[in-house]
């Protein structure tokens, strides 16, 4: 049996918008260098959980949590947490590609610049090149790094967003339906990329696409109405789920 | 340590931005204090009753009277004339561009209409005095060179864009399904427009009217140039009269030393004007936020 390191752990973790509960007492372990998929019907709290991990929901007025959410055994929601540092360690890729309205180069350079993570221009360039290579975009854009990011196709934009997240060397990458707005070919490329990335990163991905979850993930969690119904190795969830609701969902009887 | 530095910078920025934003509050306080201070001084010498009931305003003459009525009357009359023009034209245009023409044309027409609001008011004053009044003379031979009618009409044209664009915005905010509900009942375009769109947008439309009134009441140069600088308590719009704003200009043009009673009169007049427009602006603000909330 291979060794499993717990990277993220939720202990009785609940989340609220105003007084409305969005996550109910979730208990959950996410392992290092694995891909964990979160699936479930719309509005069940997948994004809420994901956005709790990098405290993106801090931006929302009246969002609150109870219980614990640990990253490397330290509570993300404790007072001393440096949110900036947390977000540096936990990167995020969104549903709709959201490059900055700047050049490809500047898109990736931004993270390095705000964290002062480069020595000189050569170093900056090298880091940008590496991350574009890592995101399997380098060959397509190496000749015009100064082109506007908006001139790329949707799939290329999404890989740019992945490169942008990778360049500051996060430990965890959160992906919220990263292929939902892409065509099948771009989707396939990104899936391939995600699988490659797990060698160096811990990945949590939210998806509505059951095949995608089955194809890429090692573990799957099924959420419903804010509760985590079932969590197991993906192979198990998709072949022999122990919960009736899970089975109904993945066989497409609802959701 | 690094965390702290970041947090401190954030706090300092936020503080600096807050100070900028609160400058606007100091401006309001400044206006109120300045007006109030001189107005109180003024009422130490002139009884409040006389200010509001006397029908003569002659602070610059030997025989001084301090009745604001002639100025108020002129302000109200010119505003009334301008609103007749601005509302009838502005609302018709708003309905037209909101309901009857293509969005692309609407996007072109709106900024062109706005030019009416960009023309400096001295220019309108010139136009009223030297073009519109002579024109009106052909219809009303006994109209004076300075009169309330001509600047009132011209001011109306200046206010058309305010009413047209604000009412158009309000009508655009009426959700599509409300219109479709009307059509589903077999109503035609006219019926949907008058029966559904205008009533639903009413608070926004009223807000535009009231803002228009506020603009008319505070407008200065058009009336100063074309209505004259002679306080005259009359309802005959063909006669010269002086508005509150025109009086302030008249005194400012002369060398009135600070501290004199004459000097204080412009603040008392200004206070009247401020209170009037303040009430109108606040009503307009709440009417506007009402329709914004409704269809969010």
């Amino acid at each position, binding site marked *: 049996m291979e060794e499993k390191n717990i990277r993220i752990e939720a202990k009785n973790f609940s989340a609220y918008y105003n007084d409305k509960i969005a996550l109910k007492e979730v208990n959950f372990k996410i392992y290092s260098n694995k891909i964990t998929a979160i699936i479930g019907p719309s509005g069940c709290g997948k994004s809420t959980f994901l956005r709790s991990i990098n405290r*993106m929901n801090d*931006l929302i007025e009246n969002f609150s949590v109870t219980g614990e959410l640990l990253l490397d055994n330290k509570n993300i929601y404790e007072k001393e947490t440096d949110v900036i540092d*947390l*977000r540096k360690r936990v*990167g995020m890729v*969104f549903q*709709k590609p*959201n490059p*900055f*309205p700047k050049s490809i180069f500047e898109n990736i350079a931004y*993270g390095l610049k*705000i964290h002062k993570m480069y020595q000189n221009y050569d170093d900056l360039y090298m880091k940008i090149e590496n991350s574009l290579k890592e995101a399997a975009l380098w060959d397509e854009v190496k000749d015009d790094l100064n082109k506007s990011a908006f001139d790329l196709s949707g799939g290329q934009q999404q890989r740019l967003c992945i490169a*942008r997240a990778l360049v500051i060397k996060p430990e965890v990458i959160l992906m919220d339906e990263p292929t939902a707005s892409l065509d099948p070919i771009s989707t396939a490329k990104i899936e391939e990329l995600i699988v490659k990335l797990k060698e160096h990163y811990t990945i949590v991905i939210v998806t509505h696409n059951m095949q995608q979850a089955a194809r890429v993930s090692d573990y799957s969690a099924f959420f419903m109405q804010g509760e985590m119904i079932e969590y197991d190795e993906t192979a198990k969830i998709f072949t022999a789920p122990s919960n009736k609701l899970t089975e109904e969902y993945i066989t497409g009887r609802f959701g | 340590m690094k965390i702290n530095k*970041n947090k401190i910078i*954030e706090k300092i920025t936020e503080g600096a*931005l*807050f100070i*900028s*934003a*609160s*400058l*606007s509050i100091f*401006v309001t306080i*400044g*206006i109120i204090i*300045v007006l109030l201070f001189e107005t109180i001084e003024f009422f130490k010498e002139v009884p409040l009753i006389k200010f509001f009931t006397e029908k003569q305003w002659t602070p610059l003459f030997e025989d001084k009277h301090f009745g604001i009525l002639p100025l108020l009357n002129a302000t109200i009359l010119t505003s009334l004339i301008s609103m007749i023009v601005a509302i*009838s*034209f502005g609302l*018709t245009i708003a*309905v*037209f561009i909101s*309901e*009857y023409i293509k969005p692309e044309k609407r996007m072109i*027409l709106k900024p062109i209409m706005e*030019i*009416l609001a*960009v023309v*400096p*008011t001295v*220019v309108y*004053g*010139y136009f009223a005095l030297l*073009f519109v009044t002579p024109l009106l003379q052909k219809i009303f031979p006994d109209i004076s060179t300075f009169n309330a009618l001509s600047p009132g009409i011209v001011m109306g044209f200046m206010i*058309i864009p305010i009413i047209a664009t604000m009412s158009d915005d309000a009508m655009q905010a009426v959700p599509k399904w409300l219109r479709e509900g009307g059509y589903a009942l077999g109503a*035609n375009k*006219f019926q949907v*427009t008058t029966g559904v769109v205008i009533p639903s947008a009413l608070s926004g439309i009223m807000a535009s009217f009231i803002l228009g009134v506020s603009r008319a009441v505070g407008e*200065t*140069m058009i009336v*100063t*140039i074309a209505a004259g600088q002679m306080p005259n308590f009359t309802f005959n719009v063909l006669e010269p009269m002086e508005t509150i*704003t025109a009086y*302030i200009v008249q005194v400012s043009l002369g060398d009135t030393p600070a501290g004199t009673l004459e000097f204080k009169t412009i*603040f008392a007049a*200004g206070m009247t*004007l*401020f209170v009037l*427009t303040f009430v109108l602006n*606040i009503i307009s*603000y709440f009417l506007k936020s009402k329709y914004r909330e409704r269809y969010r």
Partner: protein
Amino acid sequence: MKEKKLIYKIRDNFFPVAGLFATIISLGVLFVLIIDVFKDGYLRLNWQFLTSYPSRIPEKAGILSAWVGTLWIMVLTAFLIFPIGVASGIYLEEYAKPGKIKDFLEINISNLAGVPSIIYGLLGLQIFVYSFKMDRSILAGALTLSLVVLPIVIVATRESLKAVPISLREASFALGANKLQTVIFQVLPSAFSGILSGVILAMSRAIGETAPLITIGALTYIAFLPTGPFTTEFPFITFKGLRDFFTVLPIQVFNWVSRPQKGFHANAAAGIIILLIISLFINFLAIYLRIKFEKYMRRK
């Protein structure tokens, strides 16, 4: 039956016909106005007019001190309203939490936008001219005008910031940027042309403002220029001019309109032509930037 049909027909065509009519009349008035001033004033538009001081003889009078004064006031006003207006807009849109303070600030700014400009003149007279002892100087004039048009800049800044999609901010925050970095490096550059359009719109309003400047006591007869900003001695720039008396184009026009002689009316018309050209140009610039901004925003 036929009669009823006719009534229906009239009714159903009321808005298209009346709307078109009202639009044409309004724009017609604008057109007539422009033709009228042009007809009255074009003969006075010459080099002498631009380079002469006012005079008792209409043919010798010009707008030199007026346009120089307008230039001074405009530049100074732009420098004043840009930082303060933009900072206020940023505070309200990006930093202020929903609540009483924000509501209060909003109502206050919306009210200030509707306060008659002549009231700002009274404020400027007491505060800048008398209390701060600036006298009827260019500085007092520019400060007063800045207060008049500040709400326009604040509102335009907020609208532009509002148009920047939340996803852009999220992308920045997700990379570990703090609020200040996000605002400076991502949000502001995206909103910039919209904000600039607002500032320019404010300028087009300021350039035509007459009443507040008359109220603070700007003179109608000025036969000298403010001390120029450039000198031959180190540091080659001087702010002495800020303390000088001034007049502006619209005041000069007002002065000439108020005189009975026809010759001065021609001068007024000529001044108006110049004033109109400048303010319409500035306004079109603002509209152009606005359209560019909207197009740019739609790409996202």
